[in-house]
């Protein structure tokens, strides 16, 4: 089951450049939350703070509080332990090129020392079914490399890989930006189904996409969260002038 995310006074830096200023935001469990805003506004940095991926960048620094469910993300836990509870899907599909489809999906469990063959088989099948890829690849999961799939299939493979570790939260950083409209449509349908089990935070440049998949939407600008509300409200009746300017295409 998904869990909620509470973010309080989050600030993030790359070296001396401050990328996020005082972000406060509550993500509802088992809903999809979209983050929109122009390039460089900090939305990617923000979701990378949620699973502590931000700190892998050189000279990166974070301040503030992030709670995933009832646990603090930054205190009393390690980054690796936290990331096992949070799946992440990246902008460009990044399957492990030396691994077969099966190994790609099983990677999260195997690399963390899990060995039970029978259970792994089940998890791989279940995850590929959840990511709507099973029917297309079931005959070749051991034979084909993850990199031999098409772009859209690769991205669904990456989603399966993230789901295999049974996370409570799924972070998606512009998951469709490298895909064609058909693949995008498939992934959006998938997000709809995954909401039942996971909390989803999705960064997107595509405002229609935000409107289609998310119940809540946050608008970022220059490292600040300008507005956060129900998606409907943001797109029909935003309370901030800057949000309105952005979604009506007056800038950005």
């Amino acid at each position, binding site marked *: 089951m998904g869990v909620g995310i509470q973010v309080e006074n989050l600030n993030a830096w790359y070296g001396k450049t401050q990328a996020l200023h005082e972000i406060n935001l509550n993500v509802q469990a088992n809903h999809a939350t979209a983050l929109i805003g122009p390039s460089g506004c900090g939305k990617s940095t923000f979701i990378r703070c949620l699973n502590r991926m931000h700190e892998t960048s050189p000279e990166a620094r974070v301040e503030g509080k992030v709670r995933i469910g009832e646990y603090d993300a930054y205190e009393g836990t390690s980054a690796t332990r*936290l990331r096992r509870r949070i799946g*992440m899907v990246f902008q460009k599909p990044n399957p492990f090129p030396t691994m077969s489809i099966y190994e790609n999906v099983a990677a999260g469990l195997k*690399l963390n020392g899990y060995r039970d063959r029978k259970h792994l088989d089940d998890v791989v099948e279940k995850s590929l079914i959840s990511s709507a890829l099973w029917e297309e690849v079931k005959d070749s999961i051991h034979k084909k490399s993850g990199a031999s799939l098409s772009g859209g299939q690769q991205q669904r493979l990456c989603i399966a*890989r993230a789901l295999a570790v049974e996370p409570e939260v799924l972070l998606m950083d512009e998951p469709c930006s490298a895909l064609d409209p058909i693949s995008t449509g498939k992934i959006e349908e998938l997000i709809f189904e995954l909401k039942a089990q996971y909390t989803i935070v999705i960064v997107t440049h595509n405002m229609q996409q935000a409107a289609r998949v998310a119940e809540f939407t946050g608008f970022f600008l220059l490292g600040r969260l300008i507005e956060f509300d129900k998606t409907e409200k943001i797109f029909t009746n935003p309370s901030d002038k800057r949000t309105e300017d952005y979604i009506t295409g007056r800038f950005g």
Partner: protein
Amino acid sequence: MVNLRGLVPDPSRLVTPKHEINLWRRVTDHLATAFAVSTVILVLTPLVAIFGYLVYKGIGSVNWAFLTQTPKPPGEIGGGMANAIAGSVLILAIGSLLGVPLGIGAGIYLAEFGRNRFGDLVRFVSDVLNGVPSIVIGIVAYALVVLRQKHFSALAGGAALAIMMVPTITRTTEEMLLLVPNALREAAYGLGVPRWRTTMSITLRTATSGIITGVMLAFARVAGETAPLLFTAFGNQYWNWHLDQPTAALPLQIFTYAISPYDDWHRQAWAGALVLIILIVSAVAAVRFVVRRGTLGGVA
């Protein structure tokens, strides 16, 4: 049908007829191709010539006795280089066992953790070491191993070769690891895989074929080295399997025989050179074959 006339260019005019292509462009095109082909020929000629000449001079002397017997005393006809072939295999095995893990380890450090002053220092030292003449490396191994053991030995020879292998392997490993897209590391981190595990199972595995290339380059280079073995492995007329005793090696044997005054030894030196080249090529090919079967692809 929408009338597109005027909106799109006339398709028949998109392709310039051949005779209209500027003569000068066609000439330079052919010149460039001819230049590229001739450089390939230029590079391949010495290679083919050397190998051809070796076969011509050596093949007649490569026989069963040559491959199974130890050398005869000076002046006697016959005998072979079996002990030198075995000795070379032994010394190269020691050298690889010492040099490959060290080189790959240093390469991993430089690529994954070495973005700092100390990393730059290691890089610099490694490049300098790469340029040190092999005879000097032999002296170093002599001082470090031979003087201490009070023995010429296979171990000392292996150590000298290892020192020569390390810089090449270190730098190629680093380069190959840096070619692995950061997105793959992030994918693993995102799954909660610890950093060391990511390096071993994702980064290193993805770069395997490239790293193997570097290792085989280093191996092939030191396999033919004579100078670092002169006063480390020293050479031996007899069989020897003790790591702390003087050991024969093909390059040493070739060297000794080639400068000797006996015709039979000259013939055997040619045969030895041919066998050495064949051994190196087959070792490299075998490793490549095994690695290619074991992986699904990756960088380089």
